[in-house]
């Protein structure tokens, strides 16, 4: 016999109240990354070993800059959700667990903003 109320079962939220959205957004970012990562690998192969100016011209196109930002931000978000699950699975000491999770979130935010500002700087020709 379950002591959960019918409403609690139907809503399907556990004690943390946000389990589904973590799972869902991990999938949404995964699907977005399918075409984006193929585009990214193709682009890197085209730029590898090339001149600075070639790479700048390439990233200066609004189309490439948009896809690059989408790729980096989706990758950072997806990576952060994945690392969180790994930490939650293996690190059981509460304060270590919390410290690493915070570190991952802060590092992802830092990388996301660094990437965004860099791409904008190239696009705007600074």
């Amino acid at each position, binding site marked *: 016999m379950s002591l959960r109320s019918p409403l609690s079962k139907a809503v399907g939220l556990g004690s943390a109240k946000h389990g589904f959205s973590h799972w869902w957004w991990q999938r949404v970012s995964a699907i977005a990354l399918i075409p984006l990562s193929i585009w990214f*690998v193709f682009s890197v192969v085209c730029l590898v070993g090339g001149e*600075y100016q070639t790479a700048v011209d390439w*990233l200066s196109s609004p189309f490439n800059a948009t896809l690059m930002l989408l790729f980096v931000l989706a990758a950072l978000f997806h*990576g952060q959700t994945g690392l969180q699950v790994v930490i939650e699975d293996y690190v059981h000491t509460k304060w270590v667990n919390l410290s690493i999770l915070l570190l991952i979130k802060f590092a992802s935010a830092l990388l996301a903003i660094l990437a965004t500002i*860099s791409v904008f700087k190239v696009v705007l020709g600074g």
Partner: protein
Amino acid sequence: MQKERPLSPHLQVYKPQLTSMLSILHRGTGVFLALGTPVLVLWLLALAGGAEAYVNFQACFNNWFAQLLVFGWTYALFYHLCNGIRHLFWDVGRGFEIETLYTSGKAVMLISVLMTAVTWYFAVSRLGGAA
């Protein structure tokens, strides 16, 4: 009486299954790719930093260890991509039959190796042409 019961998993005679190995590899490649994101951001920073910063960034990849890392990231990306698609099929409740699991697992291994090989073939031939 209790001594005769097999302990599970009995590691000396434990035969690893393709399915569990691919599952571990999915997590492993995921963590490895996440560790690569700072390098990707460094590339963008170098692009924003000017010609000198970009040349310095490129110079960091003139050694076998860095190239091995990039090769690893290429394979990890394609493996995680292909196996991720396999995961998405499971998410909608498809492909759970044992036979299908093995077929899709082998397909993922084959396609990820092929995609890595094609990518590096083009990258190396471009580098060879430039040099």
